[in-house]
């Protein structure tokens, strides 16, 4: 047990938690914004994947990391708008349309990489580089904290800043108020003159941007190339964090951070002669139990018809 404690309290481990939690945090906030706007964004996975691929390809061919990241995020925003259009203009089921977009991203990225680079696996043959890391002056000298924070990718900083930003957006701005009203009861929002469609389009675009940032981090921060299906279900885990966090910014923050910590722990425990596959089931099992408990509590409070049950 003490071996585990040593690992958990080391600065390398804590730094790994921040790094691993980054895509979960950003994608989960993306899911949160969409969910609160009243359109479930199950396409987070595809948006991340498309952004990761686009980012690495553009950065590799143009030589500009910034341009790559921008194009990656822009593509994810487009996919978010497409999802909103399918839902709002064509009456599509958001979940099924999301599944379609995920397929499109999975097939489209693999097809693009194979067509451009003649490689089935990814873009490792293309030099695309990483986004810069950020070290705050002075922080480095603080014991433990300095080692944990310094040298983290700029998107990791962005991911942690996103929590207060999203909370501020939701509860302190006019747009946030409209967004929550639209997600709660679109008819009532409409009747008091809130432009429902515009708010939902904006929300889905923002959701895509956040998922896109998560994707760009994967191919231009976590590693510096795109690998086929490299999101590996992170979008779905982020979606679970949205519900586990009770659809509130700080709750989602804690849930996503928890997934990051559990995964980092699984990686560490893998070195301690425990089957890594079994350790890595822990966060999912925890979510399943939490989901049941959460639903049970809601039901006891007589709120079973609420957001969690409405899907």
């Amino acid at each position: 047990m003490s071996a585990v404690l040593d690992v958990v309290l080391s600065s390398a481990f804590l730094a790994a938690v921040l790094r691993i939690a980054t895509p979960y945090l950003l994608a989960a906030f993306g899911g949160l914004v969409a969910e609160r706007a009243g359109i479930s964004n199950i396409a987070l996975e595809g948006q991340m994947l498309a952004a990761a691929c686009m980012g690495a390809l553009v950065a590799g061919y143009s030589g500009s990391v910034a341009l790559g990241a921008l194009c990656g995020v822009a593509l994810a925003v487009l996919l978010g708008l497409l999802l909103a259009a399918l839902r709002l203009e064509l009456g599509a089921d958001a979940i099924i349309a999301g599944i379609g977009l995920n397929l499109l991203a999975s097939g489209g990225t693999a097809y693009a990489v194979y067509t451009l680079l003649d490689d089935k696996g990814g873009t490792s043959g293309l030099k695309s580089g990483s986004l810069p890391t950020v070290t705050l002056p002075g922080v480095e000298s603080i014991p433990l904290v300095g080692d944990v924070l310094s040298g983290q990718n700029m998107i990791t900083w962005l991911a942690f800043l996103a929590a207060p930003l999203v909370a501020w957006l939701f509860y302190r701005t006019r747009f946030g108020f409209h967004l929550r009203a639209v997600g709660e009861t679109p008819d009532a929002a409409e009747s008091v003159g809130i432009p429902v469609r515009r708010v939902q389009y904006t929300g889905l675009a923002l959701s895509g941007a956040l998922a896109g940032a998560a994707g760009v981090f994967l191919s231009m921060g976590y590693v510096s190339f795109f690998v086929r299906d490299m999101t590996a279900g992170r979008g779905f885990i982020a979606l679970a964090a949205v519900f586990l966090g009770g659809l509130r910014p700080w709750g989602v923050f804690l849930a996503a951070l928890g997934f990051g910590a559990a995964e980092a722990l699984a990686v560490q425990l893998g070195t301690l002669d425990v089957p890594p596959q079994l350790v890595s089931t822990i966060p999912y099992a925890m979510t399943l139990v939490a989901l049941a408990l959460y639903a049970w509590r809601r039901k006891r409070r007589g709120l079973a018809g609420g957001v969690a049950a409405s899907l």
Partner: protein
Amino acid sequence: MTTAPTTRVEREDRREYRATRRRDLAVDLSMTLATILAALAIGFLVMLLTGNDPVQAYEAMLTGPLDRSFRVGRWLEDATTLTLLGLSVAIPFRARQISLGAESQVYAGALAAATVAIFLPLPPVAAVVVPMVAAATAGAGMGFVPGAMKARLGANEIVATLMLNAIVVRVYDYLVNGPLKEPGSSAVHSKSIQQDSVLTPLTEWFGIPLGRANVGLFLMLLTAVALWLLITRTPLGYRIRMTGSNPDFAEYGGIRVPRAIEWSFVIGGAVAGLAGAHLVQGVYGRLEPGLAGSLAFEGIVVALLARNNPLVVVVAGLFYSYLRAGGDIMEQQTDVGTEIVVVIQAVIVLLVTAQALPDLLKRRIARRQRRQPIQGDAR
């Protein structure tokens, strides 16, 4: 079952109802065809824009699977698994439950079938049947968990099934790499199942080489018919359909909606479990890593394309597997990546879910024929 129509009004009513149904079916079929053609056209454009030769590619894709008998076998074997998985999601979809749990169910089924077929000595016929029953039971159990969570607690079934998938896939991976791995083998797979448990290959029946296609094909067809009867001709099927079309009304009409939801998950799970048994007893003869590939998610596409009608799922499954098989052949013969098939598949999903299109069309036709607006439109 129904009494013969007596009055003139009744007869006219019935005639009109049948005409509406025929019209809807015709529109459904033509929409499905149009969807497929539109998706293929978009695939054509994508290939053209990416500098490939779409005519050559489509020729390889659309004629390839039929030009040798073993390729036909490859297609039928793939279609068997895929259709079973499509059927497995069509049932909960009928109750409007977005179950994405086919992956956990197919792996649980494969594990159960393989464990029984490897370790439990059984007399000849039982050796085939018992592993399948075990697989269906395991799959049903995997369906029951999210089903009960949704029905009894109102827990989100999408999250529950996704989490269960993640867990079962990892446990499966652990078992194949660990306790169930064939001792002394350098490659990762389980021991082979006993010979008596193997589903008879079609090659033995027809005397031409049909690869790994096996009698599971007929089992799949039987399952589809059974599910169609269940959905359209039994009280449980009625409850599931009513729950799907309007849960409040179903509840009001005395249907216990939570029970119907639970059953839809359990039945779907059992069918996905059978797909796992087919993979083990018919296709691979043992457990291999990543046995089901992306088939579980592609089953969703098949169910959607068939609008969750079990008989149409068979057609959609055969069609979709044909594209899959053709995609592989296309990649061998041309420079075009087989992933274009996934893109085409995605376009199909997006077009199918754009519900407003066929509904608009149906309503317009109905209006033109009746020359009278429909009162109290449901939407």
